[in-house]
């Protein structure tokens, strides 16, 4: 696997000829060897249509392509970095949380309305995710940023997990998510517990949660 965690906030990646990596633009800290960084206008893969798609979806984080031979270290903003290994399944993550990922992974955007209809769109607004989210599919590794470290919670069919939308980072596997509300009369009169909205994740997979309620 190309990524190795040096410490909680930095990862090291090995680049070999013929292999590509994508990373957030400006996230390189140091490198050894002959490595080239080219800004990626398309914001990843998929050609012009997907570029326009991501612009429209507001999931167009500036990315760069990393090619050559050597090792590169990545880190950004002092945020904790976690490497997530994908084995053929799909990871849903916000574009601005992506630090770096394998070039072999297939990148796409997911319309939240297609996963839960109107409630999915409401969910995107409540969680600050917008109406779209980024998906990565295939075999490879992804380095994801979070504030205060990540814990991984397994989701099994008999054990759904509820997550605070602000602490949600990513999920992978065959997981459905929906916004569940626990709004009562207390929230209406301003006496809420601050836990009025939750994401309910059910199915089979895992969800990643950060130890903070701050967005990046």
């Amino acid at each position, binding site marked *: 696997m190309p990524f190795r965690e040096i410490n909680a906030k930095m990862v090291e990646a090995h680049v070999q000829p013929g292999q590509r990596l994508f990373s957030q633009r400006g996230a390189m800290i140091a490198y050894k060897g002959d490595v080239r960084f080219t800004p990626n206008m398309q914001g990843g893969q998929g050609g012009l249509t997907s570029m326009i798609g991501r612009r429209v979806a507001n999931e167009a984080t500036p990315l760069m392509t990393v090619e050559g031979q050597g090792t590169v270290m990545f880190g950004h903003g002092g945020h904790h970095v976690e490497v997530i290994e994908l084995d053929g399944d799909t990871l849903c993550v916000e574009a601005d949380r992506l630090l770096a990922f394998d070039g072999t992974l297939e990148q796409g955007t997911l319309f939240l309305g297609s996963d839960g209809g109107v409630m999915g769109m409401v969910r995107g607004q409540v969680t600050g995710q917008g109406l779209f989210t980024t998906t990565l599919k295939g075999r490879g590794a992804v380095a994801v940023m979070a504030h205060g470290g990540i*814990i991984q*919670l397994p989701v099994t069919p008999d054990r759904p997990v509820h997550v*605070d939308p602000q602490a949600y980072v990513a999920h992978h596997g065959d997981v459905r998510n929906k916004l569940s509300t626990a709004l009562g009369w207390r929230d209406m009169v301003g006496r809420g*517990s*601050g*836990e009025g909205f939750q994401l309910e994740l059910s199915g089979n997979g895992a969800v990643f949660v950060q*130890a*903070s309620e701050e967005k990046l």
Partner: protein
Amino acid sequence: MPQFRLHSAKVLAVSMSGDAVKAKNGSMVAYEGEMAFKKMSGGGEGLRGMVTRRLTGEQMTVMEVKGHGTCYFADRASDINLVQLTGETLHVEASNLLCTDSGLRTGTTFTGLRGASQGNGLFTTTVEGTGQAALMSDGPAVVLRVGPGMPLQVDPGAYIAHQGNLQQHFQSGVNFRTIMGEGSGESFQIRFEGDGLVYVQPSERNTVGGEV
């Protein structure tokens, strides 16, 4: 009894089976099972708590979490420390308290001049009874033991909590240099004497004392 454990240094996991805990408002990050969240006014101390907390400035917005399953708490990536209380009293700043067993009683006490130099006001929160509590610190906290004949001096900005039979005094090292604006930034300390434990964080809050 709710079971407290640290899922990671910054995430607290509490397993509950029909019982309840009190936690800082909005600090839940995830849960499994069935949970209900209810805001408690005045730190869950009823009308009296509402009034005293408003007056003393030790306001804490607390929610009661009740249900079956595991609930995960975290707040702004703070490190978490578990404290087991067996009948003694824990003194802690309201802003450093994350979660307490619902069997513990919370209240406010007067701290004197120390509080003013810490920038936390003149009052502090007390937790007493038997059960577990979780404290938050900026960076991993160290627990320092104070014994008879071994007093401990602590920077007011780094102090988070203490427990046991301790007397605290406020001491200042203000001298000619301080007045000339050449102070070391360590002009005020809290001195603990007696027998107990003091929790100190590896970071300093902005305090009046730290400026001189």
